[in-house]
């Protein structure tokens, strides 16, 4: 009876649980607020397609990883918890990598080592340590989903800017016209910006997004 009451007072998508998903999308975004996972954001945001696949891979690893760690949380001796966490991420990443190689060989080739490097993505280990180790499975899954989505949204934003101005296309579709045959905007003298394709520009775009976000929400501005 008492247990029944408890589950009733905590529905699957209670306000608290919903916050676990929505918070990482905006005010607690893993990339723009916690500034984690920047390295991959620089490397795989040249095209939107890569960003989408990378985002999906990270969501997959983060949700399942959080679930597994949360289920095991009372069994893991705290002294070797990092190793256990690493084993879990590594196994999940290998699964993702094999799936990509089997079903999306071109994208897998473009993403190259960066799928493998999900293992070292600070967001994943951070969520394991900070959330899954101390929370029940369901909230952990939501937390993983929220942070994964927050990461993906940022990747897509950066990738849209970079692909649009760097290659003049979105998801491979030419937006400004054909640059080789000089149609559309290119006929007027427009040129793609090469700098957009280089990694430093990703860092600058992330910086601009952080800037805009903090202009809108002054509470995020750090004290000096």
């Amino acid at each position, binding site marked *: 009876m008492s247990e029944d009451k408890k589950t009733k007072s905590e529905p699957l998508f209670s306000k608290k649980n919903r916050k676990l998903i929505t918070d990482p999308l905006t005010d607690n975004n893993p990339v723009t607020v916690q500034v984690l996972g920047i390295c991959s954001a620089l490397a795989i945001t040249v095209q939107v397609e890569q960003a989408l696949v990378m985002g999906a891979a990270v969501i997959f690893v983060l949700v399942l990883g959080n679930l597994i760690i949360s289920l095991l949380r009372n069994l893991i001796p705290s002294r070797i918890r990092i190793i256990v966490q690493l084993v879990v991420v590594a196994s999940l990443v290998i699964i993702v990598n094999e799936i990509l190689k089997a079903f999306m060989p071109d994208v897998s080739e473009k993403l190259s080592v960066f799928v493998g490097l999900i293992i070292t993505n600070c967001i994943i280990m951070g969520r394991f340590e900070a959330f899954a180790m101390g929370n029940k499975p369901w909230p952990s899954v939501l937390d993983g989903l929220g942070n994964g989505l927050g990461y993906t949204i940022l990747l897509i934003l950066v990738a849209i800017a970079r692909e649009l101005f760097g290659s003049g296309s979105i998801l491979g579709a030419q937006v400004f016209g054909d640059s080789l045959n000089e149609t559309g905007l290119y006929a007027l*003298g*427009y*040129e793609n*910006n*090469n*700098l*957009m394709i280089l990694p430093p520009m990703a860092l*600058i775009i992330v910086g601009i997004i952080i*800037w805009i976000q903090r202009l809108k929400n002054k509470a995020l501005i750090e004290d000096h």
Partner: protein
Amino acid sequence: MKFLEKIVKNMEPKFAKGGELEKWAPVYESFMTLAFTPPHTTKKGAHIRDAVDLKRTMITVVIALIPCLLFGIYNTGHWALVAESGDRTLDFWQNGGEKFIRGLVVVLPMIVVSYVVGLTVEFIFAIKNGHALHEGFLVTGLLIPLILPADIPLWMIAVATVFGVVIGKEVFGGTGMNIMNVALLTRAFLFFGYPTYMSGDKVWMAGKENTVDGFTGSTALGDLASFITDKPVFENLAMFEGTYSLWDSFMGSIPGSIGETSVIAILIGSVILVVTGVGSLRIMGSFLVGGYVMAILLNLIGGNPYLELPPEFHLVLGGFAFGAVFMATDPVTAAQTETGKLIYGFFGGLLAIMIRVLNPAYPEGVMLAILFMNVMAPIIDHYVIQANIKRRLKRLKTA
């Protein structure tokens, strides 16, 4: 002048606190202080206010840039005519008036675009943040066209200027807070963003659509860099020196970015800067020494004609002199300590020649070298100050 002052003074209440145009106060303030001596006085304590404020410092630099600008306009016109006729041996001093007008038609729009776009960005930030307009862009706006090739599309200048002013300066807090030289950052944006418009042999002469077939308008540095490739433009150094004599390179009648070619004009500017105390002779001098030392070192290594180029050529070709005088000396981004300035300048020159000669992907290294040293300047200052503290502590202990 009295009449003008009256009009301006009559407008003042409108811009004062509570006035109807309060929001536009920065705009009023900036134009008023540009024309008249600012009315600021120190209200408390014994402070001396120097009559030379930031605005007047900046104007001095602008004046120092005028010889480069005038020569650049003429040179642009000259090479536009050369490209049209395909005759590289065209006499430099003939048809002076026509050349100057041809150059003016090309250069003036570049200056206008750079100023209008840059000042608009500055005004937006000044009004939004409610502070007075900073004067830094007076110089930057003129520097930007001077370090660009003549044939660059105007919209690229506009985009790059917005990038340079916002990312290079405003995000750090405006004039005086920037880490890197704004004009050079603008150029770097163009260099990496639109490489086909910033290097190669088609961009240095205005109006390439008029160019005669088969005419290549490469710069001296571009030709030199081809020594490393399979198809060098010249067979040996003597032939190179036949085309680009030391005197021509010194005087500036060679293709290149608009303001950078004439070392004579740059020297006039440097004298103005040094005499008025605006530019640091230490930085200019050590920059030249650094470049010269590197060139000698490369001579000693030898192996290909580019490495064996006489050191004095390195000092007069490309943007080396312009960078040393107008870019490296930027008081905000250079090292602040006196010893630091020597180190900063020396390594700036050293790196500039090293990148120029040893990396064929970058035909000119001055821009990258100065930007790199801008980033290093605070570290240099830090260690200079620490060394000074240590030395003085030692003295204290022995006493």
